[in-house]
């Protein structure tokens, strides 16, 4: 099915996705069980995990489906919940556009975790970057759909539910942030991103802090990045 070059990309990508295997299976199972508990047929969580592929938004969608019909409202709410993806796209313009025919799939599957790995990892020598990004994205997508499917079909058979295992996603992002930190020569951008988001969270609260944080980050980073480019030239 895959050629030698693709196999080497798979081998390079797989270890990076192991924490996500744990996290997505766990959260996916929780999502499947949740949907069934709300009275949905298993096909709902299975197809929603496959096509929406944005974890927190899928939980929100479950509630949307139980309230009044409001398609425009659903669209606008999704834009707000997922606005952070705009930053991922702006960060990955060159890398994903250079990936050839898998590029649309990479963009479709750009969840928090796939973005974090693909943005921060230095692809090993001899491995095609496009293939590496593809396998990271595909594996993460498969883990999530597998989790939701297991939860939807077999959730009621599970003997226990491991409390706190979802912390694996937080731990993963902390490690990815640290790796990027250790790689960066100056930490201005990381500190601006974290600091302004924290301030925004304290001011606006956990339901509506992301968009003000993004605007603040852009207002600071755009002039700053131009200034830095100017210094280099």
């Amino acid at each position, binding site marked *: 099915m895959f050629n030698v070059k693709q196999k080497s990309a798979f081998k390079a990508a797989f270890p990076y996705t192991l*924490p996500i295997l*744990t996290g997505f299976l766990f959260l996916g199972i929780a999502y499947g069980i949740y949907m069934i508990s709300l009275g949905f047929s298993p096909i*709902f969580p299975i*197809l*929603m995990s496959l096509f*929406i*592929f*944005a974890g927190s*938004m899928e939980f929100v*969608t479950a509630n*949307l489906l139980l309230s009044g*019909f*409001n*398609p425009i409202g*659903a*669209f*606008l709410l*999704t*834009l707000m919940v*997922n606005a*952070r*993806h705009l*930053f991922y*796209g*702006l960060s990955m*313009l*060159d890398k994903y*556009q*250079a990936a050839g025919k898998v590029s649309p799939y990479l*963009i479709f599957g750009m969840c*928090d975790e796939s973005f974090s790995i693909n*943005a*921060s990892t230095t692809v090993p020598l001899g491995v095609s970057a496009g293939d590496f990004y593809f396998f990271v994205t595909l594996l993460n997508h498969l883990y999530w759909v597998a989790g939701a499917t297991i939860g939807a079909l077999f959730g009621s058979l599970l003997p226990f539910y491991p*409390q*706190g*295992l979802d*912390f*694996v996603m*937080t*731990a993963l*992002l*902390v*490690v990815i*942030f*640290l790796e*990027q930190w250790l790689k960066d020569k100056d*930490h201005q*951008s990381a*500190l*601006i*991103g*974290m600091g302004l*988001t924290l301030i925004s969270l304290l001011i606006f609260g*956990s339901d509506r802090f992301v968009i003000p*944080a*993004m605007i603040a*980050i852009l207002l600071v*980073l755009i002039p700053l990045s131009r200034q*830095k*480019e100017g210094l280099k030239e």
Partner: protein
Amino acid sequence: MTTTQQIITIVMVVLGTMTTRFLPFILFPANKETPHFIQSLGKVLPSAALGLLVIYCLKDINLLAGNHGIPELIAVAFVVFLHVLKRNMLLSISGGTFLYMVLISVVF
């Protein structure tokens, strides 16, 4: 909601998500020169976006009630400590997660 209305709602959520993911690539396609300030921004934005994401993960911690976010903060500190010490991604993540699970089930 009828089943048709539910399907329409799901399609709208898919469209919304895809808009947030595809928009930058539609605005700045490969065959056209990307404005200079977007190129400059693209170089510094990943670190800032990862910083935003770390806070996003911890957004539901309530410092004023319950266990005051102490288990989360201890476990995050442990992840950082392990990672600086050993620089092994899987070890840091599994160690931190294990500690967190112990903390919330045994201590808090």
